[in-house]
C-alpha cells in the first residue's frame, strides 16, 4: 500500500526539481542586464505610490473564516459518506440518515445565520 505514497513523493520531488531546473535554465539562457527601472515595481508606468504590503479590507478575512468553518464541517461528512452504505446494509440506514440530517441542518442554520448577519454581503 505504501508504494502509492512513494509514487506521490516521487512525483512531488520530480515536479519541484523540474520546476527549479527550468528556472535555473532560464537564468542561464536569459540576458542579465538589470537596470534600476527594470527592477522597479510595475505600477502602470508610474513611480509606485507607497508600498503594496498594506493593510487590506477586512471582508477578505471574513471569507477566510467562513471557509475554515464550512470546509472543516464539510470534511466531517466524508467518513459518514463512506460508511453510509455499509450501515444501510446493516439495517441502520434511516438512523444514519437522521444523524446526517441533523448535522447538515446545523450547517444550514449556520449559513442562514451568517447570511442574515450580512457576512455574505460583499459591500
Amino acid at each position, binding site marked *: 500500500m505504501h508504494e502509492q505514497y512513494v509514487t506521490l513523493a516521487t512525483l512531488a520531488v520530480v515536479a519541484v526539481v523540474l520546476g527549479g531546473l527550468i528556472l535555473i535554465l532560464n537564468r542561464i539562457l536569459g540576458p542579465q542586464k538589470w537596470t534600476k527601472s527594470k527592477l522597479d515595481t510595475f505600477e502602470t*508606468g508610474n513611480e509606485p505610490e507607497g508600498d503594496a504590503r498594506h493593510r487590506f*479590507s477586512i471582508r477578505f478575512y471574513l471569507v477566510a473564516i467562513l471557509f475554515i468553518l464550512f470546509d472543516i464541517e464539510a470534511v466531517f461528512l466524508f467518513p459518514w459518506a463512506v460508511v453510509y452504505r455499509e450501515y444501510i446494509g446493516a439495517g441502520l440506514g434511516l438512523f444514519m440518515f437522521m444523524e446526517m440530517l441533523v448535522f447538515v441542518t446545523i450547517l444550514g442554520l449556520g449559513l442562514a445565520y451568517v447570511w442574515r448577519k450580512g457576512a455574505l454581503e460583499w459591500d
Partner: protein
Amino acid sequence: MTAIARARAPRPDPFLDIDSYDPEADLMVMNLGPQHPSTHGVFRVLLYLDGEIIIKAVPYPGYLHRGVEKLCEKLTYAQITPIVDKNDYVAPMLNEQAVNMAFEKMLGVEVPPRALHMRTLLAEIQRVASHLLWLGTFAMDLGGALGGGTSVFMYCFREREAILDLFEKLTGCRFHYNTHTVGGQRHDIPAGWAAEVHRVLGAISDRIDEYEAMLSHPIFLKRTKGVGVIDAQLALELGLTGPLLRASGVDHDLRRDAPYHIYDQIKDLKVAVESDGDCLARYKVRVVELRESIRISRLLVDNVPEGPICGGRPIKQPGQFKAKAGQVYVGIETPRGELGTYLIAGGGKMGDTPYRLKIRPPSLHALAVVPYVFPGHSVSDAVAILGSLDPIMGEVDR
C-alpha cells in the same frame, strides 16, 4: 459613516481632500494608468482604495499632449486638415469636417451640394466604424483580452476593417484620410463604390444582431446594469454630449437640433434616448445609433447629387485663403458627442493662419465624470465605466 458609504452618497465632492473623507481609513493609493491595458491610451487615474472599493479618484489626462492647437496657429488654413486627423483617431473624418466647416464659415467659401452630401455620408459611415470599435473594446474591458471579450472585439474589428477598406477605395488612406478641404472634398466617389457600401453595411447590420445576442447574456447585464450611473443633472453640469448625454435621458443631438451638412433633409432621424444613465444605457444608445447610421448611410449613398466636389478655386498654394478678423464656432455631432471648433482669425497680415484655434473635444468632458462616478465602485467597475465613456486620448490631450 464609513468611507465607502460616504463615497456612495449621492454626489460626493471629488475635490475634498482625501483626509476629510475619512482620515483613519488607511487607504491604498494605486495608479490606474497611464500604461494600463484598459485606459484606452494613456490616461491616468489615481485611485484611493478601501479593499477593492474606490473612495476617491483623481484623473490625470495629458500624457498624449502634442500641442495641436498651437501647431494650427502656425499652419495655413489648407494645411491644418491632416493635423487634426490625429485628434480623434477613431473618427478622423469628423475631425476634418469640423475644422473645415469652421474655415469655410470664416472664409465664406461655398460648399457644393455633392460635397455636402458626401460629407454627411462619410460622417455616418465613420460613426458606424467608431461605434464598432467602441463595442469591441468595451467587450474586451468586460471580458478580458483572453476570453469572450476578445471574440466580440475580433468580430467588431473585422467589420471595421471592411469600412476602412471602403475609405481606402475612396481616399487611398485607411486612417488619416485628409480628404476634406476648405470648400469641399479632395476625392470623388469612385465607380462601383455605392454597391460596395451597400454590401459592407448590409453585412454589418445583419451581424449586429449576432453581437447583441452575444452580449445579452446575464453576465453582461450584471456587469453593466446600474454601474456608473450619470444622472441628467450631472451630465449637463459637466458638459457631456452625444451618446453619454442621451443615455442619461437628455434628448439632444446636434444632427437634429442644429442641423449642418444635409441633416435637415433627413426627416426621420431617430435619436436614441435612454433614461438610466448606466453602462447598459450607454451600450443601448450606441447600438441603436449604429443601426440608425447604417440606415442613413444606405439611404444617402444611393442619391448623391451630381456636380463638383469642391467649391471655389482649386488649392494651388498654401496661403491661398485670407481671412478677415473675426471669430466663428462650429459644433458637429461626432460618435462621442459635440466636437466644437472655435476659430479666431487675425485678419490683415495674420490672415493666412488662424490666430487661435480651440478644439472642444467631447471625450475631455466625458472624462470629467471620473471623480464623480468612480467612488463607490470596485476596480472592475471602474474599468467598465471608463470603457463605456469611450474616451479617445488623442482628442482629450490634443
